[in-house]
């Protein structure tokens, strides 16, 4: 995933935008992976989530970064599909049942190529600034690749800056709390509980003003 337009888009547009218009308060930056394979999981409130997470890692890792995103949404027209796959570099997945193919195969292959996946276990952006229940895909993926570190990130504020269904970006300082990488312990349910607990603990680190 090394497209010159992708590099220009991130270095000249996304990084300055995130630095100036948004402004991040990052806690636990040192816990982020410095090489692939790895999985970053975060709560999901805004299209900005992916872009911001991609700027947290150094430029040299940009070619390795693959946000996992729904094919039915991002590949719905050719222009969006080009932007999503070539510029953002998403790894499209089929949502829902009814597909016979192994839905995790693409992610497993990406991890075998030492890539860094960005996953949102809530599934969709949902109501802004509210944490929904996690889907179990992460656990199934990690069971197949147990050595890969999973780094949990709690994002706050991006859903205020650009919530679902809005096109106008309103500047807010945003928080990114990075947690300790999680290790696999051979039990899907226990693993997901641990992940959700970690996410709630990270969320509890901040004191956020009300917004509704």
């Amino acid at each position, binding site marked *: 995933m090394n497209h010159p337009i992708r590099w220009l888009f991130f270095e000249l547009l996304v990084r300055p935008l995130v630095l100036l218009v948004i*402004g991040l308060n990052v806690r636990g930056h040192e816990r982020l992976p410095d090489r692939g394979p790895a999985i970053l999981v975060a709560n999901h409130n805004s299209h900005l989530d992916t872009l911001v997470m991609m700027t947290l890692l150094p430029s040299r890792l940009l070619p390795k970064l693959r946000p996992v995103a729904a094919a039915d949404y991002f590949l719905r027209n050719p222009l969006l599909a080009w932007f999503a796959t070539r510029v953002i570099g998403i790894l499209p997945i089929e949502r829902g049942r009814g597909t016979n193919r192994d839905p995790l195969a693409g992610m497993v292959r990406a991890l075998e190529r030492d890539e860094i996946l960005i996953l949102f276990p809530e599934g969709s952006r949902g109501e802004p600034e509210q944490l929904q229940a996690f889907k179990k895909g992460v656990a199934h993926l990690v069971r197949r690749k147990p050595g890969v570190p999973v780094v949990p990130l709690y994002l706050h504020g991006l859903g205020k800056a650009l919530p679902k269904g809005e096109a106008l970006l309103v500047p807010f300082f945003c928080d990114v709390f990075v947690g300790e990488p999680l290790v696999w312990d051979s039990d899907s349910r226990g693993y997901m509980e641990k992940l959700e607990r970690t996410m709630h603990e990270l969320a509890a680190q901040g004191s956020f003003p009300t917004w509704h």
Partner: protein
Amino acid sequence: MIALDSAKPLLWALGGIYVLLVIASLFIAWQQRRWPERNLTELVQRVRSWWIMVAIFSAALLFGATVTLIFLGLVSFLALKEYLSMIPTRRADRRVLFWAYLAIPLQFYWIGIAWYGMFIVFIPVYLFLLLPLRMVLIGETDGFLRAVGTLHWGVMITVFGLSHAAYLIMLPGDADAGGEGASLLLYLVFLTQFNDVAQYVWGKSFGKRPIVPKVSPNKTWAGFLGGVGTTTLLAVLIAPWLTPMDTPAALFSGLLIGVGGFIGDVNMSALKRDLGIKDSGSLIAGHGGILDRVDSLSFTAPLFFHFVRYGFY
């Protein structure tokens, strides 16, 4: 770039500030060698941040009025963004907040074209009327008073208040008057920041009786009086180089900056206490957020600006 020969006092003053920074850094290095067991991390961080802030501010001043205005507009933007990020806001008001942000480039544009009349009424009059109108058009009445009140209060402090510092650079009437406005701006900013440090140092060294115990238990009478005294003394000493003020006027300016800076500081403390937070943000290592750094300036700038403009221009 400003003309170097007409800006000699400015250059000397900036040089003096760098000397103070060198002294502060040497003092910390000496303390660390003398008492290696002490943890001075926060102090080291704070002084390092001072170096960065002074470097950026002095570069902006030397590049001339336009760059200085852009820089101060950016400071206003960061301060307003920090304010709006820490107070409760309503989702329905996203577009209203956007209009409030748009006021910043306009306010600094009025300064850039030296349109004093517009500069002085734009936010207290026109924006004051426009923001509730925009809010009413959206139609969310639940929490209306709090939303419109807190928004305009924040814009008054972070944009209107701070922009008075920026207008100094246009005195006596335009920006090409030999760096006179730039010197006034440096005089105000330096004394305001010096006053913050002086009140802190006096309070740490001799402070006993709290001055506003409910708002900020660490602020003491000794810190306040010592700080105002030191700031006023310095204001009188450097006024002949940087300003057209005589001694009585410089004395009064020093008092305005010392007392005004204290009020701006505790004003922000009261807000943070109300919201239940310690720092307004984390933008400046060792200092907290940008509001923690410019809170005093948001009060000293209008006070000093109107005094010096009324009295000398």
